[in-house]
């Protein structure tokens, strides 16, 4: 089940190969009249970050993609008599991109869930997977089922059937569900002991077992699900064509050959094919909750949105506190320190400002995991705090330097030591100058805190995303989420304006 993580997607989006493809597309468009007889390419959307065996960048030519979903897409295209054209879309955005019409068909380990069938035109299932539980070798006997994991953390990919399964188990078995944006780190964190179990598709579990030593997967299926092809809801004609093509490929063995080639063929598949070819519209024992109508969904999700908002607020306040303390020390070091101190601090500031905070979060949470294993919330707090400290320090430095020299002269004549002058005269005045930009930064931090979902902290934006995936629409969750962010940031702006008014410095 291919998946997104924004860092990679950004890199990919600007990858020369992608631009090359864009250039190629414009060449095709410009020369289209000359090739009027050439059929339009079948644009198919998938996420290359999902990796093998679904869709991965071809190791021998990263500009190309390979995987069983790639071959199925190409099979469908060729049987429709159209050239296949790959469109890179982040896994979590595939549904929305299909609705927008970014591509004709989407397949990338996309699960058959009721919400998806409701908002999109979905094909017959083409592959059956089992949701399986993976644990550490040492815990093989201890943790055999979700029930035995009571009070423990169990990881999976957000917005999936497995995540719904874990949310249900939170209520019934008292486990804690941990949501990831991709499928690599749930397993590495399991091996490391950050979580005690992972529930995901058996295809992913098998891949993970090859990558991580010391893990074991229980063979029993916690649930059964299917992969499907999606198209825009109004594009039912194309869906019919895809269904017919898939059925033919099941009959003539083309699908089996693809699955065998990628080592994902098993006894479940012939049975699925039989059912698909026998009766149209097979429903698996998906175990997914029935789709809720919007008002009920809002009522059900509102408490979790507020809880997530509290995480956002707590994280932002604590990270800001860290940034203020550290930023002040850096600023003082840069104003009062010797040349060595000053240049060291300058390097820190430039590195933290010059690299993406997302990268810094990854390094702190995953990169340093072999040295220090920080809990996700602490890693998020430290990551945001260290990053914002760099920005704060620049604000404080210029504010300190903006306090008139004469103020310090006056203090010196009165007999204050350097430290007293800083504490009683310079810093209080600088703080008043720094207040407005600081408030700006805090509001920015409030919003930047949504980035920490990449290291499994479920804050407001992530919870909204889960909500939206569940009901198959961004409209209501998006509006609710925006309203909650505003409820947090507007009072802050008001408070800052009041303080600024009260502490207005001459010339301001």
């Amino acid at each position, binding site marked *: 089940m291919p998946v997104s993580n924004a860092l990679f997607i950004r890199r990919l989006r600007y990858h020369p190969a992608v631009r090359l493809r864009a250039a190629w597309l414009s060449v095709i468009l410009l020369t289209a009249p000359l090739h009027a007889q050439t059929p339009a390419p079948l644009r198919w959307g998938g996420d290359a970050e999902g990796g093998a065996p679904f869709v991965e960048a071809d190791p021998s030519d990263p500009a190309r993609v390979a995987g069983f979903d790639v071959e199925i897409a190409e099979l469908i295209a060729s049987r429709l008599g159209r050239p296949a054209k790959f469109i890179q879309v982040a896994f979590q955005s595939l549904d929305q991109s299909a609705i927008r019409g970014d591509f004709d068909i989407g397949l990338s380990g996309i699960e058959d869930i009721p919400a998806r069938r409701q908002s999109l035109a979905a094909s017959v299932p083409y592959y059956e997977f089992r949701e399986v539980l993976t644990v550490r070798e040492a815990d093989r006997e201890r943790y055999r089922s979700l029930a035995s994991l009571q009070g423990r953390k169990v990881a999976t990919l957000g917005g999936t059937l497995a995540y719904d399964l874990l949310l249900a188990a939170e209520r019934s078995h008292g486990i804690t569900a941990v949501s990831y944006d991709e499928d690599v780190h749930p397993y590495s964190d399991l091996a490391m002991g950050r979580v005690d179990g992972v529930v995901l598709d058996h295809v992913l579990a098998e891949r993970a077992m090859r990558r991580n030593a010391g893990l074991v997967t229980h063979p029993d299926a916690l649930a059964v699900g299917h992969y499907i092809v999606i198209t825009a809801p109004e594009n039912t004609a194309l869906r019919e064509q895809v269904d017919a093509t898939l059925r033919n490929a099941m009959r003539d063995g083309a699908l089996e050959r693809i699955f065998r080639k990628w080592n994902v063929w098993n006894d479940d598949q012939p049975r699925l094919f039989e059912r698909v070819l026998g009766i149209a519209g097979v429903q698996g024992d998906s175990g997914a909750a029935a789709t809720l109508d919007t008002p009920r969904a809002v009522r059900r999700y509102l408490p979790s949105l507020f809880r997530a908002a509290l995480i956002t607020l707590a994280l932002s306040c604590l990270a800001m506190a860290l940034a203020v303390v550290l930023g002040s020390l850096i600023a003082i070091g840069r104003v009062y320190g010797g040349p060595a101190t000053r240049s060291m601090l300058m390097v820190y500031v430039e590195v933290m400002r010059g690299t993406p905070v997302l990268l810094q979060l990854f390094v702190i949470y995953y990169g340093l995991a072999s040295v220090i294993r920080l809990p996700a919330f602490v890693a998020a707090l430290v990551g945001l705090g260290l990053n914002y400290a760099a920005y704060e320090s620049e604000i404080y430095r210029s504010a300190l330097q903006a306090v008139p020299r004469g103020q310090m002269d006056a203090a010196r004549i*009165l007999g*204050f030591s350097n430290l007293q002058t800083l504490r009683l005269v310079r810093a209080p005045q600088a703080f*008043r100058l720094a207040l407005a930009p600081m408030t700006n930064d805090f509001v920015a931090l409030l919003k930047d805190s949504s980035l920490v979902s990449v290291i499994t902290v479920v804050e407001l934006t992530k919870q909204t995303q889960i909500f939206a995936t569940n009901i198959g629409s961004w409209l209501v969750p998006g509006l609710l989420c925006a309203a909650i962010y505003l409820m947090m940031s507007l009072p802050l702006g008001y408070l800052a304006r009041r303080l600024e008014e009260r502490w207005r410095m001459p010339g301001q």
Partner: protein
Amino acid sequence: MTPTLSIRSLSFTRGTRSILQCVNLEARAGEIVALMGLSGSGKTTILRIIAGLDTPDAGEVTAAKAGMVFQSHYLFEHLSAIDNVTLAPIHVHRVAAGTARERAQALLDQLGVGHRAGALPRELSGGEAQRVAIARALAVDPPLLLLDEPTASLDPARKNDLGDALRALAATGRALVMTSHDDEFVRTHATRVVVLANGAVVEEGDPRQVLDHPQHPATRELLEGWWAGWGSNPRPPD
């Protein structure tokens, strides 16, 4: 009696520019010494060196603890008038906050700005700010008080009040050194005048004597320039 302030052969250079050359100056308790001279003659630099803000290249400065009132006051902008006055007694001299406050209020009352004790510096007029600055300098009871252009922010009516206040301070045994462009003020209130030109003392003595019968061309230029510019520029630039 040893002088409160004694300067011998003082020289000061800023960059490549010579600001002061071999200046001698003394001030005793009870004296009000006025430094006069054209802009750039080095008056303010002498005050800064006495206060310890600038370090001379050569010469000897023996000065009692000095308080200073800057031309633009430099009141601490984030503190009320009375907090400006109590800050140094509380944090430098470890006076109890209550006691420091009482003394500060008394000082402000004495200088006629007691009713403005709670105001922030930006809410004060030029004259009020100056008197708060004087109170702040006096709060730590320095034997030597330095004032840079104290008449610059005052209207003529207020100048006499200031002069009376300065004389009262001198009468309590302090030495006062001020810079001024205002020869009328100096004539009336100073006990001695020192005229500077190009960083050197060119003339000094009793204010009436020196200003009514200037001996040195620089002193004459100072007074003529002053009068010549009176109509268009009543307050010469520093």
